[in-house]
């Protein structure tokens, strides 16, 4: 098993753990953390992809994709956390209410 294949598999496992936790937990901060873990898994997979090319320099395009992805993930996490804080301020709880709107 090559190193990049190992990284890729770990990335996929992280993605799976993240998505599973997203569904299972009901606390908002845990959901946001789960999304971050899943995102890290995808980024790890991308970095593993970069190592596949032959030659001394790894492929820079996946690296740029990961950089962009990280920035986007940070922005989205910040917005999510701000919303979660606001929900806590307004409703007093940090879990999404599950009842159907009447």
């Amino acid at each position: 098993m090559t190193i990049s294949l190992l990284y890729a598999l770990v990335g996929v496992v992280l993605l799976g753990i993240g998505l599973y936790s997203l569904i299972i937990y009901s606390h908002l901060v845990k959901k946001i953390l789960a999304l971050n873990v899943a995102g890290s898994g995808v980024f790890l997979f991308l970095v593993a992809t970069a190592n596949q090319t032959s030659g001394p320099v790894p492929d820079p395009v996946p690296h740029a994709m990961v950089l962009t992805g990280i920035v986007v993930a940070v922005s989205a996490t910040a917005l999510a956390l701000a919303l979660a804080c606001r929900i806590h301020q307004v409703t007093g709880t940090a879990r999404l209410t599950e009842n159907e709107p009447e």
Partner: protein
Amino acid sequence: MAISGVENPVTAVLLNFRGYDTLLEIGVLLLAALGVFSAVPSPVILSKSTPSPILILLLRLLLPFIVLAGGYILWIGKYAPGGAFQAGAILAAGGILLSTAAVPFNRFATKTMSIAMGIGLLTFIVVALATMMVRGNFLQYPVAQAGTLILVIEAAATISIAIILTILFIGGNPEESPTAKDEGDKAFIIERDNTTK
């Protein structure tokens, strides 16, 4: 690599070959800050308490180095791993230290802060459109000035990214700290309920 104006392949891809993605990404950052401003009326991390003297002393020692490191990383992005986002993140770390040391942010001039937040995206778009009008293709740098243009864009972006990341950490608009204008907030709430229900 030579025709891209920078030597580091990742920076070349980020700012030159796939610069359009980076432009939109800076837009996403600004958008997140905007979203946080609109969703949260006052910052989550407040500066109510008095600044702690120990932290202030530590900041006096650390901040110059942080700024230096940020500037260095920005510059070295041309030759080695580095660039606007990395430098912006380091500077934002300094900003986060400032906020945890309870330095009051609402003394910053609002206009300066807004301009600083927007300058990165604005510079990028202006350069892109200018190159389009001169060379005929969006974001196509003339080869001789490619390195300089990239540095200009990255410098403006670093400022924006640093301020936006700090604001994202604070979680709100610094000028809306609850110490001031409580009457204004009440009026807004009444108005908002009338118009947007």
